[in-house]
């Protein structure tokens, strides 16, 4: 099998110090037995799952604890047997910030007789049932965005190329690398399933060149499998080569249209971890209850990759890796570029948590002073989305939404390349993120304004019609009264006459 040759350069991007070797020295550690699990219902990009257990109930390994909500949503399962302590709202890690979510809190008892393990589900024969099985297994994109996999695979548009993302471009993270080294066969089994479901002709597996062991392992597995559809492509180790849009462009030469999903370019992008989860589901009938997490950084004693039950508190994970070393003021969830800092280690590992960095205080640099933009254009050179950060910056500061729309702020993937190269140390990404948030709010307000105006005008119109009608009614009534008055006079006169007659007759009696 020959390697897929790439004849184009990546747009933008920066070469970063990878710092991945720190956590790749040991094999994947599978001995973590958490005592408590906090299983969030919002672990996917989409509506939350609905808890299907009650406090006090005992659940067995692999039992669903959350039913998928309205699509795109995914189910949640109990990774281990135990007793439900509570179903409550907690702060959990989301895509780019902490968010509030219902959580099922579990006290693990880890009994592992047959009765304590949910029976493996049969892999169905029909495509529609298979997609439903993937949804019921709670599989979501494990690269970080956590988009429900079933909804990606069930898209009705035609998909020609499945992009398998093993680039893992962010510093420190090595969970996909280790997975590819150790589980190449399962990854490929999942890949084949996804290819069949999508009806795609080919699969391109993109791996950054700085992972020779993973490339070797995957190449050998592909050769063993002999599936001509799957081809391996070594891509340049430049951040953010592993971004969905960037990898598609690098491998196929096609650009995903602004504001659309990759399917618009005939591609579907899946992370290798997702392929592994699908492979496990096909082979063993297992739902997604564990994932590989890189625990790394100078602040942890034994940096390594750990297979973690979803919901494990980060504190137990760190303790399992030898605990903290020295002063660790904060943790970073995700990589150093797109991840975010948290100060609590009571948060659970979710399906999207690919890396936990324990930051030693020596690793944190002082905050640089922000200098004025000198319009050097370095940020535009490294922007993988081909934007002009130097032009976006002043408009982001003043919330000039019309201009920001024209300049394509919404295409910013917040990768942070511009921050890295900026000689004035301007936190550009932070400005853009803030402007995006403000823009969303502004659009909501505009929408509210438009609908309100329409509803207001309709109400005015309705009231006017009502007035008109009641006016009409009144005039009609008056006319009626006027018309009737003649006959009414006669009636009154008749009655008066009658009374008069009776009086006269009464007088006669007395």
């Amino acid at each position, binding site marked *: 099998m020959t390697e897929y040759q790439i004849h184009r350069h990546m747009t933008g991007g920066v070469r970063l110090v990878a710092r991945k070797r720190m956590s790749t020295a040991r094999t994947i550690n599978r001995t973590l037995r958490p005592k408590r699990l906090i299983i969030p219902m919002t672990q996917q990009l989409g509506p939350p799952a609905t808890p299907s257990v009650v406090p006090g109930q005992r659940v067995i390994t692999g039992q669903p604890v959350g039913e998928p909500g309205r699509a795109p949503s995914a189910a949640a399962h109990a990774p281990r047997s135990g007793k439900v302590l509570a179903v409550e709202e907690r702060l959990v890690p989301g895509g780019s910030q902490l968010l509030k979510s219902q959580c099922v809190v579990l006290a693990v008892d880890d009994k592992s007789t047959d009765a304590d393990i949910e029976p493996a589900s049969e892999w169905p024969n029909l495509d529609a049932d298979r997609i439903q099985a993937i949804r019921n297994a709670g599989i979501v994109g494990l690269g970080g965005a956590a988009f429900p996999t079933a909804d990606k695979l069930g898209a009705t548009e035609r998909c020609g190329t499945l992009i398998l993302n093993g680039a893992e471009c962010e510093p420190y993270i090595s969970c996909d690398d280790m997975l590819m080294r150790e589980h190449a066969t399962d990854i490929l089994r999942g890949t084949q399933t996804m290819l069949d479901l999508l009806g795609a002709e080919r699969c391109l597996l993109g791996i950054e060149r700085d992972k020779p062991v993973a490339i070797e392992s995957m190449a050998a597995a592909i050769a063993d499998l002999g599936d001509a559809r799957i081809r391996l492509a070594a891509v340049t180790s430049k951040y953010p080569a592993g971004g969905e849009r960037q990898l598609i462009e690098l491998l196929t030469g096609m650009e995903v249209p602004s504001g659309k999903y990759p399917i618009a370019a005939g591609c579907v992008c899946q992370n290798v971890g997702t392929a592994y989860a699908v492979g496990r589901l096909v082979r063993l009938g297992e739902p997604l209850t564990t994932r590989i997490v890189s625990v790394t950084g100078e602040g942890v004693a034994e940096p390594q990759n750990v297979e973690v039950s979803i919901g494990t508190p980060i504190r137990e994970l760190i303790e399992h890796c030898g605990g903290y070393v020295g002063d660790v003021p904060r943790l970073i969830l995700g990589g150093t570029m797109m991840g975010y800092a948290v100060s609590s280690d009571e948060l659970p590992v979710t399906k999207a948590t690919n890396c936990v960095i324990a930051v030693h205080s020596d690793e944190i640099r002082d905050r640089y002073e922000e200098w004025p933009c000198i319009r050097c254009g370095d940020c535009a050179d490294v922007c993988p989305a081909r934007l002009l950060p130097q032009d976006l910056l002043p408009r982001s500061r003043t*919330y000039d939404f019309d201009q920001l729309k024209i300049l394509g702020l919404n295409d910013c993937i917040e990768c942070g390349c511009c921050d890295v190269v900026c000689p004035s140390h301007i936190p550009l990404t932070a400005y853009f993120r803030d402007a995006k948030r403000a823009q969303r709010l502004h659009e*909501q*307000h505009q929408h*509210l*304004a*438009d*609908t*309100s*105006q329409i*509803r*207001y005008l*309709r*109400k005015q119109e309705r009231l006017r019609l009502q007035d008109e009608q009641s006016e009409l009614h009144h005039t009609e009534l008056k006319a009626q009264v006027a018309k009737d008055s003649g006959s009414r006079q006669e009636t009154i006169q008749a009655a008066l006459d009658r009374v008069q007659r009776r009086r006269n007759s009464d007088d006669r009696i007395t």
Partner: protein
Amino acid sequence: MITGTVILTALTATLAILLVLASRYLPPAADPMADRLERLLPRIQCAQCGYPGCHAYAVAIAAGSASINRCPPGGDETIRELAHALGREPEPLLASLGNASLDKVARIDESLCIGCNLCARVCPVDAIVGISQMMHTVISTHCTGCELCLPPCPVDCIVLEPRDD
């Protein structure tokens, strides 16, 4: 030369006639400035500016009879945009008007509601539903947080809450 003159004259004459007809029969643009200003307002029709609805306020600003700082829900942002559109300096918001906000929605405490229907009558956007003697409720996606329903409620069962997205 003559042909050219004739053609050009005919052309200008036709166009002139067309223009005259258009100006006579097409509906006139109401007030372009007022329309433009109205687009900049939050248009939630809260009437806290003292005018009956955003359109009336926009017309008043365009006519020069109202200041641009009378829109509490729009706040500083709207004032800035209005000032920009009019080529004036922004002014601080007039504090005495009210505190309607786009980030709030009304909620009716349904256990207290007596079904008097007074709130539904004043709601500018028909966001309150319910018939006489029955419980009323607020359609929160349509509610603009204008607070107009608060004063008429005889049992004070309406509260404003932050809008959740």
